[in-house]
């Protein structure tokens, strides 16, 4: 199978590295970062490109743009690993639309396009007979959409609960375990590389809310948007509150929750019994799905990381290869 990769940040590099290292029958024919691109129908030497990117900051020719790669390279599936913009979805949204119109399958880790334009993209993909897969957008390496779409096919999904933001979970774990203040725990998260310089996207629950929107749209097709999520962050939590929860054998975690029958779509810090499987430590993510037949299923795994996210992307790619491209 031939693929084009757009985006060569941490996730893109992880994907390129894994494709290069593993013998999966995947050939990369097009590659672009924000400044340059390269096309080679015979297959790009990924090790050489990654080395070049490391040295010069560019992966290819400055005269070749991402759009050039999308339009001109010969590929079956586009891997969109451009950064998330929650407000516009760009540049990923435009890239994905272009590729679908050219009847190319899509694998993306970019939350923006899926959260903002799920219905349109799904309809466009169906019209063009291509796959639209985005396992990496929610829960990192956790195969949540494979589980929902295949393992739990035939189940009615009644509710979904998740710990979907590793940064928040790390901060809350540290506050609960060490009695740190929010500010201290945030500082530590930054030092560990888990939190951005501007942490508001994580700690105000926006990231978790976007993922909840993607889950809800996938499961129920209800067209909910980011603004529909009732959202409270963790930035006002106190060590005393953690202690008060602790005294009841509970703790506090940022929980994303969707229960359509009750009209619940919210992200908020919640008191939760420590024995609940959603109570995971550090940067881990966890998702509980409640269904009519299987009842509760909880998946726990790494919610971020270059190679972990590449795992989700490769899972999508190989699914597409087996289902659509070539059966070997």
């Amino acid at each position: 199978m031939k693929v084009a990769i757009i985006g060569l940040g941490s996730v893109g590099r992880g994907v390129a590295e894994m494709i290069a290292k593993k013998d999966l029958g995947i050939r990369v024919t097009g590659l672009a970062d924000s400044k340059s691109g390269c096309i080679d129908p015979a297959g790009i030497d990924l090790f050489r490109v990654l080395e070049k990117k490391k040295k010069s900051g560019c992966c290819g020719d400055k005269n070749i743009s991402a759009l050039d790669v999308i339009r001109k390279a010969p590929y079956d599936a586009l891997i969109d690993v451009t950064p998330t913009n929650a407000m516009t979805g760009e540049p990923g949204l435009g890239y994905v639309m272009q590729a679908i119109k050219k009847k190319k399958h899509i694998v993306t880790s970019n939350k923006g396009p899926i959260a903002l334009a799920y219905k349109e993209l799904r309809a466009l993909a169906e019209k063009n007979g291509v796959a639209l897969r985005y396992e990496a957008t929610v829960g990192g390496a956790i195969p949540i959409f494979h589980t929902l779409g295949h393992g739990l096919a035939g189940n009615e999904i009644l509710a979904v609960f998740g710990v979907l933001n590793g940064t928040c979970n790390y901060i809350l774990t540290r506050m609960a375990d060490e009695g740190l203040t929010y500010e201290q725990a945030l500082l530590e998260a930054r030092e560990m590389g888990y939190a951005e310089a501007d942490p508001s996207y994580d700690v105000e629950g926006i990231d978790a809310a976007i993922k909840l929107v993607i889950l809800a749209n996938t499961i129920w097709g209800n067209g909910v948007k980011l603004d529909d999520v009732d959202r409270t962050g963790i930035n006002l939590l106190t060590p005393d509150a953690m202690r008060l929860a602790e005294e009841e054998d509970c703790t506090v975690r940022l929980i994303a929750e969707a229960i359509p029958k009750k009209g619940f779509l919210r992200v908020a810090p919640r008191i939760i019994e420590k024995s609940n499987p959603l109570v995971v430590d550090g940067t881990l993510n966890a998702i509980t799905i409640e269904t009519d037949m299987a009842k509760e299923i909880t998946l726990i795994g790494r919610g971020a990381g270059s190679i972990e996210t590449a795992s989700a992307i490769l899972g999508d790619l190989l699914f597409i290869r087996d289902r659509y491209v070539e059966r070997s």
Partner: protein
Amino acid sequence: MKLEMKDSPGQLVAALKPMSDVGGNIIAVIHQRDPDATDDTLNVQIVLELPEGRLDDLVTMLKKQGVHIQRIGEERLLYQRTVILIGHLMHTDLSDTVDRIDSTGFAEVSELSMSMPAVTERSSSRLTIKSVTKDDMEDAVAILRTVAKEKDLLLIEPLEEIL
């Protein structure tokens, strides 16, 4: 509830059995023999917790045992939920916050733990609310949500929906 039964061996145990059969939890049994009593009946007061909707079953079962129910007292508050409130709790009139629940008549704040750091800092408190029914609890928490919004307090609710 206040019960009247025959004063013969095994009667009290026979009256208590249906209570556990319906999933009740007996809190107290008050049994005072009246020295002046001339008849062969025994009066017993029992305080118990029952799952919602099982009171009618219990009454039927007790009647079958030949126990006469003199009086059924007030229903106690059975549903309990613990929440945490963070913010300027004293400056925003904590007693009013509590009263907004207590004054409903269907729910009350039964426990309150609080920490108060420096005066200017936000304090944290844990409130346990009790109510008779689940719907009453939902209503009580909804009131608390409104109060929290009004007073700029952070309300942390328990994850109750999960089974």
